[in-house]
């Protein structure tokens, strides 16, 4: 059996175990509410957003509905993967797995793929449902490129949080720490990042919260590259010509690449040195 096939098979077993678990059944209503639910709400023809704005294209609706991804899907990714390693460590199974003649790098890859697939499959199914909802409510399909970028960037942000949770799981000696770390990271980037942005702006002498101040918009745009959620929105904004926050598309994609490669590398390195 080739190495690649072995990785795929091990990942498939993890995916199957996770998909058939009770945890996903608990999370499905949350995902339903946050993905197609948000698409339904934002595609309401009578909706008026703060500032009197009304989304008028399908992509714009999907952009606002991405809030559901940031709040719901990423949290579900963390909840799905937080015990990916720590549970096995607590039960002694980690030692059994590490004693198998499958290179640890391959085990790490299978672990990542298995967990990422187990959350991405339901997320993609519901994203597809969201597009159908938007079409049903607005009578308009988003463009093919828009859908591809939306799906790709959503997949990436979910993937990043899966990596963070697994990374926390390799470091934690018990599951409470693993979930605290995973949720902590999610909470920080989802809720506290605005505070970080505000503090940096204040320290830089930029007027805080002035939506029409180019300095504030540029600073916020640049700082968002340091947050996975921010990069996610930058990627979506590449399909919204009306939005310009001073960050070029290539910068957004480069940041996305770094957010993918660095945790991936860190997790593989951790697995190499992992002690049961």
């Amino acid at each position, binding site marked *: *059996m080739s190495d690649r096939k*072995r990785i795929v*098979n*091990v990942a498939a*077993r993890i995916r199957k*175990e996770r998909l058939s678990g009770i945890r996903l059944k608990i999370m499905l209503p949350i995902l339903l509410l946050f993905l197609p639910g948000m698409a339904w709400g934002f595609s309401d023809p009578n909706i008026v957003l703060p500032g009197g704005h009304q989304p008028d294209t399908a992509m714009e609706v999907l952009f606002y509905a991405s809030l559901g991804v940031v709040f719901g899907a990423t949290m579900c990714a963390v909840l799905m993967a937080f015990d990916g390693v720590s549970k096995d460590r*607590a*039960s*002694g*199974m980690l*030692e*059994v*797995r*590490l*004693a*198998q*003649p*499958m290179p640890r790098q391959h*085990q790490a890859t299978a672990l990542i793929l298995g967990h990422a697939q187990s959350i991405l499959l339901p997320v993609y199914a519901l994203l597809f449902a969201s597009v159908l909802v938007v079409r049903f409510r607005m009578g308009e399909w988003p463009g093919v490129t828009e859908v591809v970028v939306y799906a790709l960037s959503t997949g990436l942000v979910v993937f990043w949080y899966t990596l963070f949770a697994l990374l926390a799981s390799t470091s934690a000696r018990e599951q409470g720490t693993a979930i605290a770390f995973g949720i902590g990271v999610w909470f920080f980037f989802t809720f506290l990042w605005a505070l970080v942005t505000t503090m940096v702006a204040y320290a830089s002498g930029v007027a805080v919260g002035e939506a029409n101040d180019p300095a504030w918009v540029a600073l916020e745009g640049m700082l968002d590259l340091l947050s996975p959620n921010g990069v996610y929105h930058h990627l979506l904004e590449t399909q919204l010509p009306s939005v310009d926050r001073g960050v070029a598309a290539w910068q957004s994609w480069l940041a996305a690449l770094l957010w993918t490669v660095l945790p991936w590398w860190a997790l593989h390195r951790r697995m190499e040195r992992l*002690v*049961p």
Partner: protein
Amino acid sequence: MSNIEVRLSPRLMRGFPLGQCMAEAVLSFRSVQHRHALPAPTLFKPWAKRAGPGIVGLSLDLYEGCVLGLIGPNGAGKTTLLRMMAGVLPVQKGKVESRFDTDVWQPVDDLRQWVGHMPEQVRWQGRTTVHEALSQLGEMRGTSETKIERLLALVGLRSRRDDALDNLSQGMRQRLSIAAALLGSPKVLLLDEPFNGLDPVAAEAFAALVRTLASKGVSVVISSHMVAQLEGLIDRIGLLHRGQLLDEGPLEDVERRLGLEGRYTITGEGAADISSFAPDEDVLERHQDDDGWSLTVKRDPKSVLSAAVDADVNITSWAPVRPNLVEWLCAATGMSVDDISLEVASSAMLPMRTVEVGEDE
């Protein structure tokens, strides 16, 4: 009466019956070391670590078809050594060589392909079935479905193949652990405290399985702090204490080297003048009450038994006495029981009597 000749078979004299040990070394560890990293934070290096206890300067050969009993107190380094052998912990220093496939010794990069490892206390849990759990591990080794079914039959879990892990008893979980260790048809099988949680029936079945595997040429290493559990099972014994191998070899050789050989307990009924057939200098321990008497002697039992028969005392049994863990360790280290028991709590490392290794990190 004096013409009665007492004959003791060599097997009974040894007490630990030998398996079919082929005595061909297949795996060799030379001065290997793994010391655990302990946090040692300083003001400017909060993440700094230092080398702590572990395995230091250990040399050991594993023989084809031999069962090695690795004994030592808690914290001696048994689990660390087994994890090194299993490839779970890296060998930080030293050399590991094998000749599994060839006649020449070759350095080993990855032990895991040759070794099956059964860690102490794996808590198999969840709604996954026995078969699925084993298949998942088999996937990592490239084990065929037929082999998995055969293993389930071998460990007596075929009838439970579709049961959820949550529904298994402790004994069944141990059986599943050994099935997992046997997945890759290993040349070396490492069993860490395998008798924990097993009832006597399961323990006997387990021992029989180990003997069968050894007879097929598998080199088996069993760690335990309960020496009695290894009786009748092991061919060689290794004494591990504070990360160092104090002595290792065939059981009778180690016993002889440590002066623990040739001890027998003789029991009898009724009153007896023990000193009439067992000189005081040969008696290590004696006990006498209304029900009878017993004594432990350290000499050839034939002469004591002959003298006892001559003295017309009623002997009910005689049997060799195996040293227990404390006796082994006291003999190997030259330390008292109190000193050894205090040492177990300490993480400091001192040179042992038979191994001279200093702190080098």
